[in-house]
């Protein structure tokens, strides 16, 4: 489960002074559900997810991820999440198998368990053909599969996806969307940021609209449409961020 309470992150910017990239954001995401964080570029989606992944420390507020406090137990939080974004690249000089094994070891898996996990994931994602190929020699789709395998190797109960389909072609994006559905089906807690409304409409059980760091609205897609009187999620989003 993920629970954010008044989560805030402020930065000092040379030109703009103090800015609140994430401003008192509160939401809750249950296991077996997908929570979508919608916002335009620079709205605060990535910062919010980085706070949940403990890559950044909150200025105020708190968040509980998989039962651990992000400030008090950041190592435990990272040990129970899988984080995937377009910014989480692969080590080009490692093979697909070495890459997945490396992160398995970093997550504390023993060699026997790691071997079993790697075999199972590689079979599930159809990665046998390129398991010994270096990551810099892989196609975009293959790289996406390696990234997915990397996030799954320790079987985390919480998955965080930051614009995971950004810049991908249709086939690679479908792999990711299928993977998110699979995570939900397996009972994982999933949080997913995007600015592609059609994706959010297809995948999310509930969504939150973030703008200028503030969570402007949240609920199911149907609830948001009803609240704004819009016919689609996209219209609802526009009415919330640019009334």
């Amino acid at each position, binding site marked *: 489960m993920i629970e954010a309470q008044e989560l805030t992150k402020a930065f000092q910017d040379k030109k703009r002074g103090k800015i609140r990239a994430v401003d008192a954001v509160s939401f809750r995401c249950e296991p077996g559900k997908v929570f979508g964080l919608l916002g335009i570029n620079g709205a605060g989606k990535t910062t919010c997810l980085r706070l949940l992944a403990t890559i950044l420390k909150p200025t105020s507020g708190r968040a509980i991820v998989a039962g651990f406090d992000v400030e008090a137990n950041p190592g435990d939080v*990272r040990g129970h*999440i899988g984080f995937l974004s377009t910014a989480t690249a692969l*080590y080009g*000089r490692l093979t697909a198998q070495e890459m997945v094994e490396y992160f398995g070891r*970093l*997550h504390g898996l023993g060699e026997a368990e790691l071997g079993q996990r790697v075999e199972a994931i590689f079979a599930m994602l159809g990665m046998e053909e390129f398991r010994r190929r270096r990551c810099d020699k892989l196609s975009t789709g293959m790289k996406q599969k390696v990234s997915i395998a990397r996030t799954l190797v320790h079987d985390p109960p919480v998955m965080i996806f930051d614009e995971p389909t950004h810049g991908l072609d249709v086939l690679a994006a479908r792999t990711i969307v299928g993977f998110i559905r699979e995570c939900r089906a397996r009972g994982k807690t999933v949080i997913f940021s995007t600015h592609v409304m059609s994706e959010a409409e297809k995948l999310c059980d509930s969504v939150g609209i973030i703008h200028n760091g503030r969570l402007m609205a949240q609920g199911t897609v149907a609830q948001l449409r009803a609240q704004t009187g819009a016919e689609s999620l996209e219209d609802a989003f526009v009415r919330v961020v640019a009334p």
Partner: protein
Amino acid sequence: MNLRDIRIIYRKELRDMLRDRRTIISMVVVPVLVMPALMLGMGTAAAKLVTRARQEIPKVMVLGGEDSPKTLGELKGLKTIEVVANSADYTNLISEKKIRAAVKIPQGFDAGLEKGEYQIVEIYVYAGEMKSGFGAETVENFFQRLRERTVRERVAAQHFPERLLKPFEVRQTNVAPPKKVSGNLIGAIIPYLLILTCMMGAMHPAVDLTAGEKERGTMETLLCSPVSRTHLVLGKCLAVLTTSAATTLLSLSSTGICFELGKRMAASGGLALPLTMDAMGLAAVFLMMLPLAIFFSATMVAIGLFSRSSKEAHSYVQPLLVITIMPAVASLLPGVELNSGLALVPVVNISLISKELLSGTCHWSYIAIIFGSTCVYAALAVTAAVALFKRESVLFRT
């Protein structure tokens, strides 16, 4: 401290680096092939050039001397020079390297010698030009021999003993052991070379594992793992230290081999160099270099972490390399000796103690101060790297 995590990071970073062509070039190719090729190649080329210049019979112009047939005849009879026709344009001819030197014999030189008059023979040379110098040297040697012969004849004519010209002899006897002589000669160059290679060995890997990771987008991937940031930095620093130490060791070995080869080449040419390489001394130098290698590795890692890209990191590291060369040169400077003040100055202290160690001198107090102080500097550099890695403003600097 979780040693397992550090070992996992270290092994991955090492594997990653060893698959990087640029790391292999800076770690293996440069110290093993390029440096010895430069040292041996330059030395051999210089020796060949000097030998060839010595073998050339220089063209020398004799100005005057028509009224001194005896001296002129002897000069022309020399097989080591070729006397060319007289010309008023001799300075230009020397400048244009058409002749190597010219000698002006004063008017009535032979007669003046007979009468015991004081005379001046002038030799014209192009200063700094090796072949012109050899030509002038041959002519000067000829007149030196003529002067000594004349003096001996005059002394003999007065029935004075020849010993009158040389009332006593001055001799120098070397009391320094051969190791000390070698240490003073080669011990000055080796620390400089090693400090340089130690730093260069750390440079590229450190930038690649930090700024390079940021650039390639793998830093965020790594930060998602449960490993603490302290362990991440320590693993990276250890990997960089390994390449730095390996580069230093390879450089040390190849320098030793080059040195032995050079000595054998000189010996085959009839030149016995009074130089020896002390294996124990070299091992001691390598041990003293280790904390310095940690200091360099951690400093480079800190710079790489601070930088937004590899390009930015290299722009910070290059000036640092120049700054480091200056204190490393300390061992090459004449008269600079180790004292308690210099023993605390980083790089200078290692440079000077290495020179001492290679010449067989063992000042235990200095060794302790230098090793201890360099360990402190290394610990400070590691602490700074860890502190930087924990700062969000540094990791996500845009």
